[in-house]
């Protein structure tokens, strides 16, 4: 009789497919309680199904190996069986490891995004409903904008949006009615009387020598009732008087403008870019077409950026990402300790932005400075922020030590270091594998706790070894508990989910023991020794699994 090769790979793929279907069905049944939007439903269910595979993968690998060996007709004992199962087990170990390391983090992140966006949609919709009921239509409209950004086809949104838009139109119409000026019921006599009052006041002002007032009042009189020639004459005469008595207002205006331009230029030449920027901002509002003003507004803004930054950059960075609290500590070779702490931080392409930052440096000349806003580009941190539209609003640093001054400090670490520390100080499970593998030394250098990172790295390194161990153990069990007659394929696949479920709790316990070992090694060994020791431990576990499997199977390793 021809010897059948154990179809470990085929059984494993079959079980993974079953796990996907079961995971999808469970997600389908639970979507009603999850609050996920209909728009995300299929994607969310798919993510859940894929994550179910990730959760059940260890048990599936064990059961697949056992099922393959249970129906195998190999007669050369455990050694032959192990050899046959080893090649597919190695391939599966690689596939499962890649799946865990590269695919699962993305799936988890996407699933979380679907859930958070759905929650935001529901909260915003509820907020809009409440606002509509209380009559705060602007709030309702704002909430609906948030909903529209997520799903503008949702029926609840469409229905509520129609109501809110209708209410807004009605409210605007009512407001327009309320604010519309009453129709004038004035007669020509009324106009004449009011114009005459201004005319008389203008005459009095002219007699008092107040020529500006006289011209202004005469103009007002003429605007109200224009049929009186003596009024028009008074307007012309007072204007002529104004022209005759001094330089024209236009000339005066030009002179003042020139004086301010000169003042701004002087400030610019002195390096007081903030004052220069303030002056040219004011002038730009008055004379937007002036080439000199436009040129020096730009140049003073450029100069200002060497000693300050605009708050709009900070706002833009924080609108995209908010890294939360941040802290970095570095001990320099000279023994001085530099610490930077901030209540919030945001990483942008061009710089890193901080809010409520405190920077301190110990040593011969200790420095401690705090600032409400800070911007780190390269290794230079600017501590002064300016509102571009209102340059009078400036946020400046406060030095708490005698030494130290200025609006910029040179740090012993740079923007890339800060970004790295930010990633490494988050939840270890969220750290990309490449950064985790290369960043542990940096984490230690910047005063971060390296133990959780080492434990996380240990966990991820264990995936291929665990897959191999499970395949070997499953092979041992399959051979040892082989039935008299091989079970049918249908019976095998029907019972597989039960076996997977039964294997989960014991495997969880074994995984806990593995985590304990990683924790112990990360605590008691130096980081340099940790990785070789951990790999050695995993290799020893594989060898022990081989011997245990052989023992279970009832044959010694030949």
């Amino acid at each position, binding site marked *: 009789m021809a010897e059948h090769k154990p179809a470990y790979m085929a059984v494993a793929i079959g079980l993974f497919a079953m796990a996907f279907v079961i995971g999808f069905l469970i997600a389908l049944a639970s979507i009603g309680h999850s609050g996920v939007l209909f728009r995300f439903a299929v994607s969310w269910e798919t993510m859940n199904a894929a994550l179910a595979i990730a959760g059940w993968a260890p048990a599936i690998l064990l059961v697949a190996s056992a099922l393959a060996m*249970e129906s195998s007709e190999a007669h050369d004992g455990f050694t032959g069986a192990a050899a046959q199962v080893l090649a597919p087990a190695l391939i599966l170990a690689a596939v499962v490891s890649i799946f865990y390391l590269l695919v699962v983090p993305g799936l988890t992140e996407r699933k979380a995004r679907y859930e958070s966006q759905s929650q935001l949609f529901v909260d915003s919709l509820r907020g809009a409903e409440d606002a509509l009921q209380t009559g705060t239509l602007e709030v309702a409209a704002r909430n609906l904008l948030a909903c529209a950004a997520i799903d503008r086809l949702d029926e609840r949104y469409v229905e509520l949006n129609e109501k809110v838009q209708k209410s807004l139109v009605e409210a605007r119409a009512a407001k327009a009615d309320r604010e519309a000026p009453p129709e004038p019921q004035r007669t020509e006599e009324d106009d004449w009387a009011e114009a005459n009052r201004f005319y008389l006041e203008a005459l009095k002002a002219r007699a008092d020598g107040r020529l500006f007032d006289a011209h202004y009042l005469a103009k007002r009189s003429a605007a109200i009732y224009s049929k009186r020639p003596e009024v028009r004459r008074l307007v012309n005469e007072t204007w002529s008087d104004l022209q005759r008595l001094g330089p024209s207002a236009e000339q005066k205006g030009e002179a003042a403008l020139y004086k301010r331009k000169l003042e701004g230029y002087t400030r610019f030449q002195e390096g007081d870019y903030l004052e220069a920027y303030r002056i040219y901002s004011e002038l730009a509002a008055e004379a937007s077409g002036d080439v000199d003003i436009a040129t020096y507004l730009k140049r003073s803004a450029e100069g200002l950026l060497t000693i300050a930054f605009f708050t709009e950059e900070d706002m833009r960075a924080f609108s995209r990402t908010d890294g939360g609290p941040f802290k970095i500590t570095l001990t320099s070779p000279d023994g001085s300790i530099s610490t930077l702490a901030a209540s919030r931080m945001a990483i942008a392409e061009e710089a890193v932005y901080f809010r409520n930052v405190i920077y301190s440096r110990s040593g011969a000349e200790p420095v401690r400075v705090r600032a409400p806003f800070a911007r780190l580009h390269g290794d230079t941190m600017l501590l002064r922020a300016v509102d571009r539209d209102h340059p009078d609003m400036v946020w400046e640093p406060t030095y708490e030590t005698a030494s130290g001054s200025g609006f910029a400090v040179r740090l012993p670490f740079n923007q890339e270091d800060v970004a790295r520390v930010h990633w490494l100080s988050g939840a270890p499970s969220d750290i990309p594998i490449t950064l985790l593998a290369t960043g542990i030394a940096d984490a230690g250098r910047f005063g971060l706790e390296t133990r959780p990172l080492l434990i996380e790295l240990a966990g991820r390194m264990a995936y291929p070894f665990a897959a191999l161990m499970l395949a070997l153990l499953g092979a041992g069990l399959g051979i040892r508990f*082989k039935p008299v*007659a091989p079970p049918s394929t249908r019976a095998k696949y029907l019972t597989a989910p039960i*076996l997977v479920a039964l294997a989960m709790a014991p495997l969880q*316990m074994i995984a806990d023991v593995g985590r304990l070992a990683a924790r112990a090694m990360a605590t008691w060994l130096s980081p340099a020794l940790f990785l070789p020791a951990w790999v050695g431990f995993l290799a020893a576990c594989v060898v022990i699994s081989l011997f245990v499997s052989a023992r279970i199977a009832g044959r010694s390793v030949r």
Partner: protein
Amino acid sequence: MVQFCQMKSLLAVVFRFLIIFIVVDLCLTLAWTTSAALDHGLDAIRLVLGMVLASAMPASITAAIFICFFLVNRLFSSRLAGYAVLMILSVAAAAGAGLLVRFVCVDCGSDLSTLPSLYMPIAQWFMRISVAPWTDFAIGLGTFAVMNAACWSLTRLSRNRPLFGAFVAPSAALAALYLFSMYLSGPADAVFKLAGLDLPRTMTTAALAACTTLGLVLFDALFAMKPTGVPRHG
């Protein structure tokens, strides 16, 4: 000759049980002591070692007896003989462990906070029952041991798929420990109070464990396969 074979089988089971019991107890002690050392420093090892070694014994008995089920399946074709061997072995081990705590490990310490929270009720119960009056000692440890041995039927669910038993056993061992810890809890007492019986917790636990044992034996008689009593296939 038959007697010699039976004696040999019995010795094999006893030997297997003792080896597994010792290995599991040492492994659990190593794991829980390491956990204690990580949480409280290396000095904690000296303080908790004796206590952990002693309190791991109920779990070790459960693990050892469950692994012996498979050997008994192969060595005994009679349920009665199998149960007799397993129950005597389990009761003897529990009694031995209890006596060890009672006479040797009196000052092993009582701070069990380093143990896993799910196992803590059993560890507390074991340390308490080991120094309890002899009647409570016998009833408490006896019912625990017998309940464990009664799970034998769970490894013989299917003649056609012996693999099923291999997967059921580890989960069943964990479930047995969990079930026993439930019997040690307040809600289990409340059941008896509802029935108008005001019994001490030792007795309510023993009663519930005894009922479980009966249920499992009944399950064996009605649904489980007979042990094969023949060497393994393949």
